[in-house]
């Protein structure tokens, strides 16, 4: 992970993360961005359950393009509030979206058109604060948003970048198509015979994927279908500790700066409490051709 972040996410990059909404959030990648002290990132995502809040609090972020920033089960994002209200640790530019419009902004970039129209957001004051949403002719024209890089966590991938994810996908596909490149982190690194056995499940063209990182637990505390439940208590503790700057810094030391990598981090959490043990496999699809 350290290498992938070092090589493909420079200061100032625009980065799409948390694109499956609450599940599969690439926290390990986010924490590596913090450890490498990235600056001036432009984050793109739908709702970013706590990850954007952490990156903002750590001073990595110049701009957020998102529908929602906070902690889904606990409420407000305290670092996000401090940045917007008091400029702590740094002022933050916010491009407000709705979930639908952030999806359309990425589809527009994916399809190489300047904007896509929608009848959502008519009558909303979001149009006043986001210059990339333009009302004309009875529609809202959502300007394309093209991330430099999309970072996703999935259940399994092969070394060629063929990623399989299942469960709800949120805006993952449009984020990957819109971005110049994709970093994939995965629970299981599998042989290509596994990924190619079900090409419908491959998320992106392999030509988009610039790095594959085998990172078990890389989405904790967010859930990974078939692997991990959501760690509600971890989100609650984060919400409580991040209420103050000092509390947030202590949290950051404990869970980011004082752990060199995700493998060490996973030794610190109670993984068994959240591990999914009752598996339910789908029926295989027959790709036979002769």
């Amino acid at each position, binding site marked *: 992970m350290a290498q992938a972040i070092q090589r493909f996410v420079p200061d100032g990059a625009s980065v799409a993360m948390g694109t499956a909404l609450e599940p599969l959030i690439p926290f390990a990648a986010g924490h590596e961005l913090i450890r490498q002290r990235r600056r001036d990132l432009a984050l793109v995502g739908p709702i970013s359950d706590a990850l954007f809040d952490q990156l903002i609090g750590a001073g990595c972020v110049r701009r957020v393009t998102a529908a929602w920033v906070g902690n889904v089960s606990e409420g407000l994002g305290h670092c996000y509030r401090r940045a917007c209200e008091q400029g702590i640790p740094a002022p933050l530019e916010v491009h407000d979206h709705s979930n639908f419009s952030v999806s359309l902004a990425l589809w527009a970039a994916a399809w190489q058109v300047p904007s896509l129209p929608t009848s959502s957001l008519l*009558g909303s004051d979001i149009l006043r604060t986001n210059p990339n949403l333009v009302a004309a002719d009875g529609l809202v024209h959502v300007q394309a948003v093209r991330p430099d890089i999309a970072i996703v966590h999935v259940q399994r991938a092969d070394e060629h970048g063929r990623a399989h994810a299942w469960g709800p996908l949120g805006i993952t596909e449009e984020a990957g198509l819109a971005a110049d490149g994709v970093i994939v982190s995965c629970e299981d690194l599998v042989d290509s015979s596994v990924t190619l056995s079900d090409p419908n499940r491959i998320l992106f063209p392999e030509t988009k994927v610039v790095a594959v990182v085998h990172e078990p637990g890389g989405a904790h505390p967010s859930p990974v279908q078939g692997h991990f439940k959501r760690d509600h208590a971890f989100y609650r503790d984060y919400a409580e500790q991040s209420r103050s700057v000092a509390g947030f810094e202590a949290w950051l030391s404990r869970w980011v700066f004082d752990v060199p990598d995700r493998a060490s981090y996973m030794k610190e959490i109670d993984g068994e409490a959240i591990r999914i043990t009752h598996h339910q496999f789908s029926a295989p699809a027959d790709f036979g051709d002769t």
Partner: protein
Amino acid sequence: MVAVASREIRDGDLVFVGMRLPILAYAVARNAHAPNARGLFEVGLMRDQPASEFLGTMGDPPNVTGALWATRMSNVMALMAQGRVDLGFIGGAEVDRFGNLNTSYIGEPSRPKVKLPGSGGGADIAILSRRWVTLMSHERRRLVERVSFITSPGYGDGTPGWRKRNGLLGGGPVAIITTLGVLRFSEGGGEAHLASVHPGHTVADVRANTGWDLKVADDVSETSAPTDAELAASRRFDPEGFWTGPSARSGGTSP
């Protein structure tokens, strides 16, 4: 609140469920009067049966297992844009007399007093679903004369035909369900009025805790108490009172 919200769901409705209390309301309705309702979740899910375990978010694994459809968000939004979503639930930090919700900024957006998390799917639901309901803790600071920022539009400035004039496809809010009572809107929108008061509270209480001069329906009634079936379902899906207990997280905003 959960039981009252569940009664807004009609049998056969396609419901844009969202998070927190509405997840419970959906579960209660399915187990009581709306066995043929279906739920949509913006994460990219459709379900009929409520999840079998407690959910902290709509994307938790128990909400995925047994789903009718697991897909991308834009597919779910397509159904709503087509007018196929009968009812949506939206949370909010502030609502005003015309049903507009603010989940974005308290104070000037360039230097806000409070930065709230934002729209999530709220604005989309408010504009595109056929009808919607919001749930709110009943406090003067939350039920305000006019919100300073309309994230999710209700009836705008309250003038007749505001939604149609501005091109909003869905019908708008039908109820504001609070911890003290139920506020409703007349056919065609406009201004909210008090329709019923929850047991143990009075019309005077409700008006005193509302930030505008709240109109009261001529036939204002007492909200029917939760039935045994409603209570049982609520306890089953929130056994530890995470969403419904005394320190429940019901006052914030959800995506």
